[in-house]
């Protein structure tokens, strides 16, 4: 056990050090890309917490928007510092999730999927409709960037370090939650719901809890994103982005913690290379998605296993 913990620790430390020096070797737009990628990692990891209980929600992107709008409105209209609005963004998204959990968790499976989609879309349309605080289709622009000492957070490299630190903390917390007693109960709710209930687990509470905590963290991710871009608009959190989250998690593999991250990283990097064929991008995503769901339903994390089993089959064929 000690050996494996040691190995994991070295791996993570190496990864973090690598990420710390990486931006200095990149071009300007690649640094931008790295910031978004880091934020997206938090998005998928928090989404995984929601899916742990077996419910696939389609409202996660909108929850990110709730955090983003909260932080943007507070810092722009009330001059509140980024360092206060950032946690508040998480609290706002978590509160919204807590309120929505009453209607949403009366449904399961297919109904939950459609219900969460409808609720999310209704919230998003409210941002478009009520121009007074939310700014309509154009959204809110000129969102102030964080202030700390004399660091210029408009530059990508300082902002990247900020994002890296916050995302690392959040991902670590999410990891601890999943490995804790609560996380194990969430697994139980998914795979053995009735059995879990029979030993006294309130499944409704745990499903709602996963939803609220997941939303809280994605709200923080939303705030991180818009304080860098400087604008927030309803289009950033539409069903298209939600589908991307879904694709990252499915292609990476939703059964393990690192699978989802792997999906986000691999597909985002792939996406960077597809910049040339901008129009074709969605179709390539679509084909990838179909391919994975049909032939590699465990996701990328299962790839080594799959290849291994093919080789074994070959060997057996020869003998």
């Amino acid at each position, binding site marked *: 056990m000690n050996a494996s913990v040691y190995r994991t620790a070295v791996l993570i430390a190496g990864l973090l050090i690598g990420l710390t020096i990486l931006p200095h070797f990149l071009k300007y737009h690649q640094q931008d890309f790295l910031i978004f990628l880091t934020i997206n990692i938090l998005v998928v990891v928090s989404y995984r917490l929601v899916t742990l209980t077996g419910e696939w929600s389609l409202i996660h992107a909108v929850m990110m928007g709730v955090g983003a709008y909260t932080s943007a409105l507070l810092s722009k209209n009330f001059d509140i510092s980024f360092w206060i609005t950032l946690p508040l963004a998480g609290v706002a998204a978590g509160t919204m999730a807590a309120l929505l959990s009453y209607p949403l968790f009366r449904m399961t499976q297919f109904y939950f999927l*459609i219900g969460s989609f409808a609720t999310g879309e209704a919230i998003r*349309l409210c941002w478009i*409709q009520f121009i007074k605080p939310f700014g309509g289709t154009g959204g809110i622009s000129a969102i102030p960037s964080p202030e700390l000492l004399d660091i210029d957070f408009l530059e990508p490299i300082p902002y990247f370090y900020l994002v890296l630190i916050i995302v690392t903390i959040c991902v670590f917390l999410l990891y601890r939650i999943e490995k804790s007693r609560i996380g194990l109960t969430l697994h139980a709710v998914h795979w053995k719901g009735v059995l879990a209930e029979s030993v006294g687990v309130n499944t409704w509470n745990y499903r709602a809890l996963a939803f609220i905590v997941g939303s809280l963290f994605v709200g923080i991710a939303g705030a991180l994103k818009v304080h860098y871009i400087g604008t927030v608009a309803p289009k950033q959190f539409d069903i298209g982005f939600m589908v991307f989250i879904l694709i990252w998690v499915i292609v990476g593999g939703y059964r393990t913690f690192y699978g989802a991250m792997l999906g986000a990283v691999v597909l985002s990097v792939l996406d960077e290379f597809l910049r040339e064929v901008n129009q074709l991008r969605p*179709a390539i995503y679509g084909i*990838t998605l179909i391919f994975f769901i049909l032939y590699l*339903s465990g996701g990328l994390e299962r790839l080594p296993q799959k290849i291994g089993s093919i080789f074994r089959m070959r060997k057996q064929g020869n003998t």
Partner: protein
Amino acid sequence: MDLFIQTIVNGIIQSGFYALASIGLVLVFGVMRVVNFAHGELVMVGAYTVWLVHAQHGAPYLFTVVLAIILVTGIGLVMERFLFRPMMNDPLGGLICSIGVLFILQVIATYVGGEGPSKQVPPPFEGTMVIMDSIRIPYQRLFSICVSAAALVTLWYFLTRSTLGWAVRAVSMDREAAALQGISTVRISMVAIGVGAAMAGLAGALMAPLTNINPHMGHNVIITAFIVTIVGGIGSLPGAVIAAVLYALFHTFVTTYFSGTIATISGLLIMVLVLIVRPTGIMGHRVSE
């Protein structure tokens, strides 16, 4: 008062589209237990066919309507064979596959039509019928509602009077029991998606001269179809038609007196409310686990 009556008329005409566009989703879900997220894109393909063949190349309108139906039915059958059938035991898998198809169809549409502003198709039936000096119905809309109604009546007749229609309803009620009676569920799935896609193609072709055509028009269609499906009761065809009429009237009224976005927001809220209070919808019935 005139505006009131005019709004009712507009709502009834709109209901034809809503019913046609939703019925395919209901049928496919009822028979195959798959939510086809690409359903709105099937409607979009129907509309694009009319734009490309009729408006750009001058083929007769009615011919392109038939062409749209055939093309979209073909796409539906391909989806069934290569995506939904292998994913038979995994409803979520089917849904995710259909999201993939959604992207692919959107990209194809962008390639065919190019980027830029939405396309318009000049209405093949010109002129407007005026009743009582104040209520105006363009002939194009009159034509659409008549065709929609005819298609729905034909579908109803097919489902209740023909053996194949009985089989479709049997499979949507209880898949296993139907299979035990010797009904080929695979064949019935093909029939269901074929008919559903044909209706979507027809809806798109009828809508084409009356709306803005762009690769993302399916988004609004699928939201409408979801609302109609849920409010009507999942898998219930009469429920879907009734819900389509009600929702079309509701949406038209709110759009006329307030705004389109508010209409959609309240539609979505009604749908969530129905999901909470009466998940079986207005015409659905309880199914045991």
